C-alpha cells in the first residue's frame, strides 16, 4: 500500500542511485590497510628486537659478573698469601 511517504523515499533512492566513490578511493583504502598491517608487523619486530637486546645484555652482564666474582676470589687468596708471607 504505497503512499506519499513511499513515493518520497523512492524518489530519494532514484536521485541518489548514481552516488559513487571519488576517484582513487579504492587505492586510498588499500593504502590505509597496508599502512596499518606493516605497522603492526614492525611493532612485533621492534618488540622481538627489544627482547633479544635485553636477553643479550643479561647474558653479557652475567658473564662479566662471573668473571668479576672469580677475580675477587683470586684477589682474596693473594691477600691471604701476602699476609702469610709477611708472617714468615
Amino acid at each position, binding site marked *: 500500500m504505497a503512499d506519499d*511517504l*513511499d513515493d*518520497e*523515499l*523512492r524518489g*530519494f*533512492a532514484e*536521485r*541518489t*542511485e*548514481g*552516488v*559513487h*566513490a*571519488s*576517484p582513487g*578511493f*579504492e587505492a*586510498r*583504502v*588499500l593504502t*590505509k*590497510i*597496508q599502512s*596499518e*598491517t606493516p605497522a603492526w608487523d614492525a611493532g612485533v619486530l621492534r618488540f622481538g628486537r627489544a627482547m633479544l637486546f635485553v636477553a643479550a645484555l643479561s647474558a653479557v652482564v652475567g658473564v662479566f659478573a662471573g668473571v668479576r666474582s672469580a677475580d675477587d676470589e683470586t684477589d682474596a687468596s693473594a691477600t691471604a698469601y701476602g699476609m702469610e708471607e709477611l708472617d714468615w
Partner: protein
Amino acid sequence: MDDLREAIRRAADGDPRAFRTVVSQTSARLVRLAARLVGSIEDGEDVVQEAYVKAHRAIVDGKFDGKSRVETWLYRIVTNTAIDVLRSGKRRERPTDVLPDTGWDGAAAAEARIALAELAKRLEALPEDQRVAIVLKNVEGLSSGEVAEVLGTTEGAVEQRLVRARAALRNGGQNG
C-alpha cells in the same frame, strides 16, 4: 558472490592481493549506502574506509565465521560504523562553495549531493536505529528479513522500527 567468499578465504590465509578483490567488488554499493546513511559522499567514504579496515582486521584474525553472506556482513559493519558516526556527530566540515572532484558528470553529481543532503535533513530527527532501518528498507530496497540480518535483530523488531519511523516522518519527524 563465491568470488568474494574465495577472496576472503585467501585474505585470511595472508594473500595481500585478495582484499583488493573484496574492495573492488563491494565499494560502489557500500559508499552509496554509507552516503545515504550519513548524508554526504565524503562522510560516506570515511565510514566505508573505516569499515574496510575493521573487516580486514576481522578476516586476518579469523573472526569472519562465514555464517552470513559476505555482502550482508559488510553491510552490517558499514551500518554500525555509520551509526557510530551519527551518534558522535563526527562529520567533515566543508565549505559549500568548494565541491571535491568526484570524476563524474557535474550536473548528476550536484543533483546527487543535493538529494543526499535533503534525505539527511528529512531523517535527521529520527533516532539512529529507525533512520538506519528506513534507509535499508525504503531507500536501499532490502527486504525486512535482510534488514533484520544486517541489524542483527528480528524481523518483528525491524517492522516495529519502520512503523515508528514512518509515523514520525508523517508527523514532521517527531516520534510520538
